[in-house]
Every structure is written in C-alpha cells, then in structure tokens.
C-alpha cells in the first residue's frame, strides 16, 4: 500500500465513530433531497391520465360568440404553443366493394399536422398518401379489426341521418327532426391504423380520424360546434394562461394534466425542494466541520510524517483519500437511504402536495435527478476535504512536532471562509443548475434563491463574522449556570472560550433548524387563519346533509323552517363544470341569508338570472370581481356570458366533494341552461337559526323522512365538525415539512455531537490530568451538558427570533404564489417550543461525547506521544 492509502485507511479504521458520523452527516443530507425529489416525481407521475377507453384533451377551449379570429386570439395567450381545431360526432363507415349498410363509429376531425405535432395520436402503421385525390383517414384499432381494414384500403364515410336532435331550450329538452334525406357517402382511403393511445382510445378504438377540412365537408349540412385543443408550455405559470383564456374563451382543464402546477402547489413543491437544499447544505457543513477540525488533532501526525521525509503532496494525498472515501461512501449510502425514505413517505400517503395528495401503489424514481444530487453531494463533500489538505501542506513541521499548531481560532476562521464560499456560492449555483425549480423564471424563483442564500449565509456567516460575539454571549449564559455547578461551569466556560468558532458553528446549525421550525409554523398558522376565516362565513351555523333519498326538498325545508330550526336550505344536486363548478340554488332560499338578504336589488338580479355569485377562492384564482363577465359553456346555448353579482362564501359550499372555488346561479337559470332537475335533492346545506342545536335539526330531519316512509339513513355533519377537519388537514398537509425538519434537526444534532467529540479529543490530555487529579466523570459530563445547554439556548433563541422575523416575508411570498388572502399570524407557542426543542436537541447531542469522554483512560490521555 502507498503511504496515502496506509494513513487514510488506518485513520478510517481506527476512528470508526468519527468516520461514521461524518459519512452519515453527508449521506443524510443527500438522502433528504433524494427522497424529496423522488416523492415529488412520483406525485406528478400519479396524475390520472385520460379515461381508460376515452380521450380527454389536457386543455379544451370554446370561443365566445362573436370572436372572429380564434387562431390570432390563441396566439396571444401565454403558454399556448400549439392548437388544433376539432369537433367530433357519430358517423358511419362503409368498406368499398362490400354490400352493407355501414357500421357506426365516431368521427373525430382535427387539423392532422397540428394534432400530430401535439402528440395527440400515434400510429401503429401508416402509408404515404397516394395521388388519387382521396382524403386520408386514420382508423381506430377496433374499427380496423372488426372490418378487416388495413392501410391502403378504400372506404367511405358519412354522417348519420340526423335523428331528432334533443336540445335543452329554455329549460325543456326538445326534439328537432332533421327532415333530411340520407347524407351522401364520401370516399376516402385508409392511411394508417391508430395506436390505442390518446385519441386512439376514443370510443374504445371505434373511430375515424379525419382532417378538419374533410370533416367539415362530411358534416356540411349539420351544425357541429368546433372547439380547440391546446398544447401548453408547462414552464409558463398556469394562472397566466388561465387569465388570458378567460377573456375570450370558455375552457376546460383536465385536472390530472396540471397536478402540481397550480400556484399554491408550486409554492408547496418549491418549499419542499428548498428545505431539501437546506438539509444538503447542513449535511455538507457537518462533514466540513468534521474533516477540518480533525486536522487540529492530527497536526502532530503531519509533523512526524514530514520529519520522516514524506513530501507535502504525499501527506495531502492521505487527507484527500480519506475525504474521497467518506464522500464516496456517502454518495452510495445517501441515495439508498433516500429511496427508502421516499418509499416510507409514499406508503404513508405523504406526497409533495401534502398528505391529501395521495399516491397509490406507485414508486417512480427520477434516476437523472438522483444521480445528479448524489454527484453534487459527492463533489462538494470532496471539495470540503480540500481545506484540510491545503492546511496540511502549509503546516510548519517543527511546530507540529512540538505539538504546537496554528492557533485554533485562525484555523477555524480560514475553514469557515472556505466553507462559506463552498456553501453560499458553489452549492446553490450548482444545485439550481442541476435541479429545476417549479414555475417560470420570474420573481418567485428569484425570491426562492434569495431566501435560500440568506439562510445559508446565516449558517456560515455567524461563525465566520462573529465567533467572538457568540463566544461572549455563550460566556454570559454560562455564568448563572456555573454558580450552581462551579467546577463543571469552569470547564464549560473554558471550552467555550477556547472553542468559540466551534460553538458559533453549532449555534448556527441549531438556529437554522429553529428558524425553519418557527417560519413553517408561522406559514401553517397563516393558512390556518385563512381557513378559519373562510369557515366563519361558509360553515358557521350550518348542517351538511348527505345521502338524502331524493326527497322533495321544498317540503323538507318548509317543515324545518316551520319549527324555527332552519333559516334557509341549499340543495346540492345540481352542479356542472362549465368551466368551473357551478351550482344552481333556489333564489328564494338564498335571499333569506347573507348578502342577498341585505340587498334586495341584488337578490332580484340573481333571481332573474342576470349573473352569478362566486366564491372568494374562485375570485382570487381568476382575478374576478363584481361586474366582471365570465363565459359559461352550455350544451345547447353555446357560451353564455354571465356577470359577477357578488363575491361571497356564504352560499354554495358543499362538503362532498370539497371545493372552495365555484359559482352559484339561480336554480331557474341552471334548469334553463342545462335542463337539470331542481326539485329533488340528494344533499343539502341547512342554514340554522342562531343558537339552534344541530341534534334537534337532525332529529327533525329524520322524523320528516320517517313520516313519509322514505328509506335510507342520511349522514349529517355540523359546520363545526367540518371546520375542525379542514383545519386538521392543514397540519396533515405540512407533514412532509415536519419530516424534513425532523431529519434536518437530527443532522444539526450530529453536527453538534461531532464538534463536542472533536473538542474532547483536542482536550484529551487536559481532561486526563483533571481525572488524575480527582475530577469525577459526573463533573466532566456536567461540563458537556452545560456547554450543550448554552448552545441550545443561544441557537434556539437566535433561530426563534430569525424565524419569527421571516414569517411576514414567508407569508407574503405564499400569498403572491398561491393567490390566497393571508394574514400574518402573531407569535405563539412555536417560539418557546423552538427554544425548548433546541435545548433538548443540544443536550441529547452531548450524550455520546460524554460517554466517550468518561470511558477514556486518563493514563493514556496524559502519556501523550
């Protein structure tokens, strides 16, 4: 073995505890980021695709009436990179040369080239168009198989004879007979067979895909409303696209296509990634600290090797190899640990969209990101060994032989300057180059970067710039404790004085975790307050009823109102997504409560169907206000513009499904536009008279049903219950952050532990002499605990202060990102909790060093050499 391998291997082998903690520190940092990215990737991959046997475009729009140049309008919409006009209808297909009536199928017309570039269809096989002037057609797999057709075969297509067309006209379904002769067959040639993916899934594969122009000829004498399918640029913020579309289009966004892309989801996902980077930085800080502080312990070793004739490169090589081994070990252990952690989180339903974003039976590993993160952790950890390597080259041999070393403070200062460059400069730069943050390159990204660098600056800035200040503060804190335990206090204050940079580094690590904890609690509290405020409006004095046996709700309402229990009843059986959730509620009921009760004119306008009421969440999401126009797509009347009459959460919230973004129109209007029955209800929301006991209402409800012999057991939920569940949901959603925070706290504890272990090693001879003079293990242990207590109190205090200061900034950022109206919460229990938690963490971190120190043989310690 070479000198470098001999020294490096023996160091790792003979000090396994130190090697293990250093390796574990980096590995855990890598593991946390790998877990985060794997959970996020799997969360996105879990987005539901199209229906099993159908196709639903990610984004479908219908132009408002009167929009002349649809294409020009679409080109102005940010985030739209391609579009195709489309329509579809039933049709018939005939195999040329065979005597038959024609088989039914679905005819889908698109602009073929555009649709192909958008990836809307794939072909199993195809041929080039022939010069025979026949339009080309792609057949679905089932049609081709059932009719025995293949590419190149001639066919004929026709629309069906128009049946009596059933359309909703002014609240009545009307049949309109076409009175036409059989539409002509039009010849075409099969150019290929569609794969059973995307569009090829339409009607289970029973379709013909034709060019839009040909489709228009096929349906020349029939009205088919064209729509547009859009391809979206995923890097453009969804909100910008939506806002631009809302002006001229009714749009339908497939929920699964935008999972994780909404503003609040982006904020959540970016926050999780940022937390991951904090963890990685802390892990790397731990290994820097360990490798570099261990240099002080091994200065004499360096002197001996130099005296024996080892060159500086040979000596530096030993340190480099040791760092390489640790970094390589971490690069292997870290990802494995991270994937295991990701699996654990997903199995327990924790996703990157909170615990409500459940991911079932899926585990998709982003190997590219995992490899990149592992390589990043390996490279930066290896760079961290450069510092002791440089120091090793510069050590004065004679001084080292005498056991003298560069003053600890100057070595530590150099180390922190070096690590500052690495952690503040190089790591974030490489991290942001390697890993994409979610969202456009905009203010929000800059804000994330600035916040990240700011927090990292705290981590390394404190020990670099103000170790003496931290040392003095620590000394001040030690004094009252030393009065109670004089000897332990003396040892602790001496350790703090001589190791001020080490103490400051430990304080910074603890402060980082404490600040993150307080900041997160603040953000959670702001969301909690927002939900609570919404609940005041939407849930107070409510009773939610589900599973009603299609009861005639008016009779029920009359009964309950007659007993003085209920002021108004909202029925929830009528809801349509056009393009957002719309409920039709009885105007007479609504005018008894809320804004409509206060403004009779408003109530009249609503009753006449002149507009809609929208929830506050919908207003925030779409940037709508009173007087704005919202285009509503209807089956029979095209796109109908409706004015926003009021913004309120007093009406329209139903527990199942939970949706806070919706619009409310009068029941009469929903019947007219959508031909929906408004007289029976499966679910209802009862506005209770103030002070009414919900149990009485429930009893009255059950009595009403029993009297009429109506079956079933409807379920009831009070507004207070729903409020509790919604507030608890917020805590559950942030569980992923709690997990990351817990692991980061563990990392910080490892850092504190490492520092105390190294301090113990540095002072081994001193401690050995003290033990020889009669100091007990308990007194030595007491000094370590005192030091830990000081670190915990200082770190917790600094972190709590910093975290609370950052809460308004964090809440404001969340507000901008999510579009929610959030309040900055007042300081609460999180502050003392951070302080107590930091104290416990620092004390716990001292337990292993105490165990090592008490076990050390004092004779061996005093012998030296």
């Amino acid at each position, binding site marked *: 073995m070479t000198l470098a391998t*001999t020294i490096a291997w023996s160091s790792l082998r003979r000090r396994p505890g130190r090697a293990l903690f250093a390796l574990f520190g980096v590995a855990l940092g890598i593991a946390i980021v790998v877990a985060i990215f794997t959970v996020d990737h799997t969360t996105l991959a879990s987005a539901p695709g199209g229906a099993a046997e159908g196709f639903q475009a990610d984004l479908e729009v219908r132009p408002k009436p009167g929009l002349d140049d649809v294409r020009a309008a679409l080109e102005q919409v940010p985030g739209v990179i391609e579009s195709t006009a489309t329509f579809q209808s039933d049709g018939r297909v005939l195999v040329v040369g065979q005597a038959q009536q024609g088989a039914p199928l679905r005819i889908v017309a698109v602009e073929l080239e555009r649709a192909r570039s958008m990836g809307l269809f794939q072909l199993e096989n195809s041929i080039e168009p022939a010069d025979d002037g026949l339009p080309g057609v792609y057949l679905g797999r089932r049609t081709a198989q059932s009719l025995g057709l293949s590419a190149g075969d001639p066919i004929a297509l026709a629309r069906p004879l128009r049946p009596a067309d059933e359309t909703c006209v002014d609240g009545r379904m009307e049949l309109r007979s076409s009175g036409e002769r059989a539409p002509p067959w039009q010849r075409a040639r099969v150019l290929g067979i569609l794969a059973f993916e995307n569009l090829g899934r339409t009607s289970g594969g029973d379709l013909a895909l034709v060019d839009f122009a040909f489709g228009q000829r096929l349906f020349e004498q029939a009205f088919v409303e064209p729509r547009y399918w859009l391809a979206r640029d995923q890097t453009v913020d969804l909100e910008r696209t939506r806002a631009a579309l809302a002006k001229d289009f009714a749009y339908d966004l497939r929920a699964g296509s935008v999972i994780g892309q909404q503003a609040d989801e982006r904020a959540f996902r970016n926050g999780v990634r940022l937390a991951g980077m904090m963890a990685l930085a802390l892990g790397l800080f731990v290994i820097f600290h360990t490798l570099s502080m261990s240099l002080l312990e091994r200065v004499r*070793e360096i002197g001996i090797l130099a005296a024996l004739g*080892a060159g500086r490169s040979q000596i530096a090589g030993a340190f480099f190899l040791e760092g390489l081994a640790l970094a390589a070990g971490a690069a292997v252990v870290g990802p494995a640990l991270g994937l295991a952690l990701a699996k654990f989180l997903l199995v327990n339903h924790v996703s990157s969209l909170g615990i409500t974003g459940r991911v079932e039976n899926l585990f998709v590993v982003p190997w590219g990101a995992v490899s990149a993160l592992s390589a990043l952790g390996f490279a930066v950890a290896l760079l961290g060994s450069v510092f002791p390597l440089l120091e090793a080259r510069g050590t004065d041999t004679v001084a080292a032989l005498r056991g003298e070393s560069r003053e600890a403070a100057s070595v530590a200062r150099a180390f922190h300057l070096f690590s500052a460059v690495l952690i503040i400069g190089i790591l974030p730069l490489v991290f942001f180059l390697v890993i994409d943050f979610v969202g456009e390159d905009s203010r929000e990204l800059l804000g994330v970067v600035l916040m990240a660098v700011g927090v990292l600056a705290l981590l390394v800035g404190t020990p670099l710039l103000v170790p003496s200040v931290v040392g003095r503060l620590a000394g001040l804190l030690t004094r009252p404790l030393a009065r109670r335990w004089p000897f332990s206090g003396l040892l602790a204050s001496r350790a703090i004085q001589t190791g001020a940079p080490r103490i400051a580094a430990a304080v910074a690590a603890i402060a980082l975790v404490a600040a993150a904890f307080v900041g997160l609690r603040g953000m959670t509290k702001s969301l909690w307050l927002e939900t609570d405020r919404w609940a005041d409006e939407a849930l107070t004095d409510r009773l939610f009823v589900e599973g009603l046996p299609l009861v005639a709700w008016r009779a029920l309402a009359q009964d309950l109102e007659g007993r003085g229990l209920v002021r108004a009843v909202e029925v929830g059986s009528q809801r349509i997504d056009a393009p957002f959730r719309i409920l039709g509620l009885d105007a007479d009921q609504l005018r008894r409560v809320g804004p409509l009760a206060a403004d009779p004119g408003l109530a009249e306008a609503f009753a006449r169907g002149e507009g809609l009421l929208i929830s506050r969440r919908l207003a925030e999401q779409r940037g709508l206000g009173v007087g704005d126009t919202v285009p509503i797509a209807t089956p029979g009347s095209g796109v109908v513009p409706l004015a926003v009459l009021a913004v309120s959460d007093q009406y329209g919230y139903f527990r199942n499904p939970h949706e806070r973004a919706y619009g409310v129109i009068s029941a009469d209007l929903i019947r007219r536009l959508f031909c929906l029955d408004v007289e029976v209800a499966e679910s209802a929301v009862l506005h209770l008279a103030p002070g009414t006991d919900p149990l009485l209402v429930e009893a009255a409800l059950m009595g009403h049903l029993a009297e009429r012999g109506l079956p079933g057991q409807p379920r009831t939920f009070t507004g207070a219950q729903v409020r509790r569940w919604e507030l608890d949901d917020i805590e559950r959603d942030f569980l992923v952050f709690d997990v990351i925070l817990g692991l980061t706290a563990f990392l910080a504890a490892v850092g504190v532990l490492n520092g105390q272990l190294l301090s113990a090693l540095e002072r081994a001879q001193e401690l050995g002499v003290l033990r020889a003079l009669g100091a007990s293990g308990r007194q030595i242990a007491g000094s370590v605990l005192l030091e830990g207590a000081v670190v915990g109190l200082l770190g917790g205090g600094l972190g709590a202060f910093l975290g609370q200061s950052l809460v308004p900034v964090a809440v404001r950022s969340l507000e901008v990102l999510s579009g929610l109206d959030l309040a900055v919460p007042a300081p609460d229990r999180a502050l003392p909790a951070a302080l107590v938690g930091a104290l416990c963490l620092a004390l716990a971190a001292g337990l292993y060093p105490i165990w090592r120190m008490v076990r050390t043989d004092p004779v061996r310690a005093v012998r030296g050499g």
Partner: protein
Amino acid sequence: MNHASLARLERVYHFFGQRAESGDAAQIPVLADVSLEVRPGQFVCVMGPSGSGKSTLLHVLAGLTRPAAGRVELGGRSLGELGPAEVTRQRRDTVGFVFQFFNLLPNLSVWENVSIPLAIRGEPIAERRGELEGLLQRFGLGGRLPALPHQLSGGQMQRVAVARALAGRQPLLLCDEPTGNLSQENGREIMHSLRRAVDEDGRSVLLVTHNPRDAAFADRVLFLIDGKLDPGQALEGPGLDPAKVHASLTALAI
C-alpha cells in the same frame, strides 16, 4: 565541501522565534556560529542543558528549519541550494529520526509504524518483510506487530521508534533525547541498540542529550552552551566515563 561528511554545519546562526531570512542581531541566538561535522560510522553526541538549542541544531541539520545564516550540508549536498521538495527528499534518503516523545503515528500498528519509511519512499514492503520482522524480533517486539502505540509501554514505543529509524536504512540517525522519557534500564537498552547500529551496520549517529550516561556511548562528545559549540572542549571516546562527561558539562555550563 568535504564529501566524506554525512552531515555538516558551517558557521550556522539561528535565532529564537525568527523566520529563516531575518537574522536580527537583537534577537536571542539559539545557535551562534555553530560548526559541526558527522562522518560515516561516527557516533557524535551534542550535550547541553535544557533549552540550549540541541533540538534546534537537529532540526536545522535535518532541513526542518532554515538557519538565519551559515551552511548546512546533508548527504553531501548543500540544503541552502535546494528547494523544499528536494530538501525533503534529501532528508528522506539520508536521515532516520528518533524523537524524545516517540512520535509514533497513533493510528498505525507497530508493523505499520516500522514500515512507514518504506511506504514514504514507495518501496515494496514485501521484499524486506523478513528483515523488518527480524529487526522487530531483535527489539523484543516480535509478538506485538498488530499492537497500537497506546497499547505499548514507553520502552516498547521507543524501541519501535528506533526500529523505524533503522528500517529506512538511512546512513545517519538523528536522535533527540531518545531516553528522556524512559527508565534507566530501558534507556540503556536503546543506547546499546544505537551503538550496535554504528558498530555492526556502519551507520552514523548524531545524538543530542543532557544525560551523561547516554553521552558515554558516543565516539565524540561536543558541548552546546548558550548556542555555541566549542570543538576544543570536545571529549573523545568511545568508552567515556559518564562522570567525566558530567563534570565537563557542569564546568562549561557554569
């Protein structure tokens, strides 16, 4: 330049706490106009009271410290004309070191400590395994090859240090108070092994000590008083009487 010398100091000056090139006359001299020569097969001892500059003399001779003035030759080459890397190589090839406080590498076993000079030079250890094992056997350490330094007694550690110095086969051994932390018996054992290295292996030894009993093993004893070395006061051996050595030292030191 005398090629017969293994190591040579010519009018060397060194000051306390200074860097090599400063040489401020107002500073306290550790070495003042010191000249010294060690020839092949010679056992030279430099004696002086504590703080007289003995260790500094060794460090300067080994190229670990540059003197303020004067010429240092090691292995026939002037160290002042060499760069740091060349000085290290010269030291590696010419000098074996024995320290007062043993200075074994704490994480390496006895076997690894003894073979470290070979690892430094990149020599394959396997070829000399038998020789090194024999050397350790001679020092009574044959059964302690895997032991770590903290598992050894003081005497055993110093024997490992001497074995390490001998394992490198360098022609010159520099010994800085090698018996300073040992019992009389252990110390005598170490000195006998150094004497054997000169008589049987043809090595040269430069020993610095304040112990007259150790000095008595030398062929020539020089006295370093207040940084000055007076060859005229040297005692010629071998077989010197420790009492006479002690008396000379005492007389010169007063």
